[in-house]
């Protein structure tokens, strides 16, 4: 009788210890995989690919690659200051092809991916990729779209948070939402959005405050999305 009681107590204690351990472990691993924990920011173009080149009336030239890099750096430092892990695919001015960018992003197991570009117009453009209809089409091999497919809903949620945040930060600037097939976003296994900021004809990217305002808006969107 006593032996049975002792055994029962031992089993019960072992069960409680195992249960507590498993719960803590699951919580810890869940937190590590929670979306938005690691943000990868991709500055568009770079190296010999200048992107959009704008010559201002005062004779100054703005290259999209430089503005993209300035914004991406500001976003990363703003996110890091708020305690979010953030990485760049292209930390310096060098050319990277689309696949290299995707590989660099995937290596960080991102919870969110943001690609920064400039628009040809005075508006902010937010893009989410548009996926192929036929899931059995062998052509999907080219698009890597199966990687993005499970996250497309979350990508739209993040795009929505970004749209709201930018509208608040820049109330006088249009914000357009568009879905077109974008291979870089197709290749990302995480919520992925491309942000195009207004053309240099409308925003002066030589002023560091501009990149700072955009970065604050992006950080606000990341916080809103995580909630």
């Amino acid at each position: 009788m006593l032996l049975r009681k002792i055994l029962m107590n031992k089993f019960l204690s072992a069960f409680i210890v195992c249960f507590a351990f498993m719960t803590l472990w699951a919580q810890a691993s869940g937190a590590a995989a929670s979306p938005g924990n690691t943000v990868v920011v991709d500055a568009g173009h770079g190296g010999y690919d200048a992107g959009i080149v704008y010559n201002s009336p005062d004779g100054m030239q703005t290259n999209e690659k430089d503005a993209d890099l300035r914004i991406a750096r500001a976003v990363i430092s703003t996110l890091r200051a708020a305690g979010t892990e953030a990485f760049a695919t292209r930390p310096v001015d060098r050319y990277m092809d689309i696949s290299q960018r995707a590989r660099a992003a995937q290596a960080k197991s991102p919870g969110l991916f943001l690609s920064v570009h400039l628009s040809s117009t005075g508006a902010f453009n937010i893009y989410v990729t548009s996926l192929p209809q036929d899931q059995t089409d062998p052509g999907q091999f080219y698009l890597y779209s199966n990687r993005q497919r499970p996250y497309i809903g979350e990508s739209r949620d993040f795009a929505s948070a970004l749209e709201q945040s930018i509208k608040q930060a820049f109330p006088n600037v249009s914000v357009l939402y568009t879905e077109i097939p974008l291979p870089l976003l197709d290749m990302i296994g995480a919520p992925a959005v491309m942000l195009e900021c207004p053309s240099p004809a409308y925003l002066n990217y030589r002023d560091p405050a501009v990149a700072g305002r955009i970065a604050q808006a992006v950080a606000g969107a990341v916080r809103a999305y995580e909630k």
Partner: protein
Amino acid sequence: MKNDKRGRKVFFTVALVLLFAGGLTAGYLYLSLGTGLQREQEKPSAAQVAQEVQGSSPLKIYYPVNGYLQMEERVVTPMILTREDAARATVQEFLKGPAGMLDPSIPPDTRLLGTYFGADGELFIDLSDAFRRNFQGDALTEYLLLRGLYESLLSNVSGIKDVRLLIDGNEIETIGGHMLANVPLGRELITNSPQSTGVSNAANGISNGTGPE
């Protein structure tokens, strides 16, 4: 009494002359307006022009214009006889850009270097490096540029399985840094019809500012 009669006579004469003049004016206006409308209705399509002008062919060309694809009908000479002729003429007309546009999205100074059909029915379009070098635009501009070229070729050349792009004879990864250019264009550009209004329009190359919610 006599004066009264004369007055009436003058009045009726003047009224008759005015009525006649009014009728003439109304008739003239009716005829001239009618002819104008008829002329408008009789304006021939590119296909009709092509039929009438011997040795010419009509083409439908899709140009990227302000975030949309805009179709224009063009008539080209000489007469298109083969699929290769049709592909060449289509690309050449596409590279000319839309009529009357000052700032077209088509990269300037691009030359068509050649076209050929692969064994599996894929059409290869070889363009000069200016197509990549002189491209200036965002993701939507690049998408519409490639989509416009693809749709134009599909509309005018029979039996195309897909379209592939070459620059100076080589495959290159991208034209403007947003889209892949080293995959068959049809596979890359044609996607499903997404759920929300903004999304649906965007898939056709139209952005209307509607959010994703």
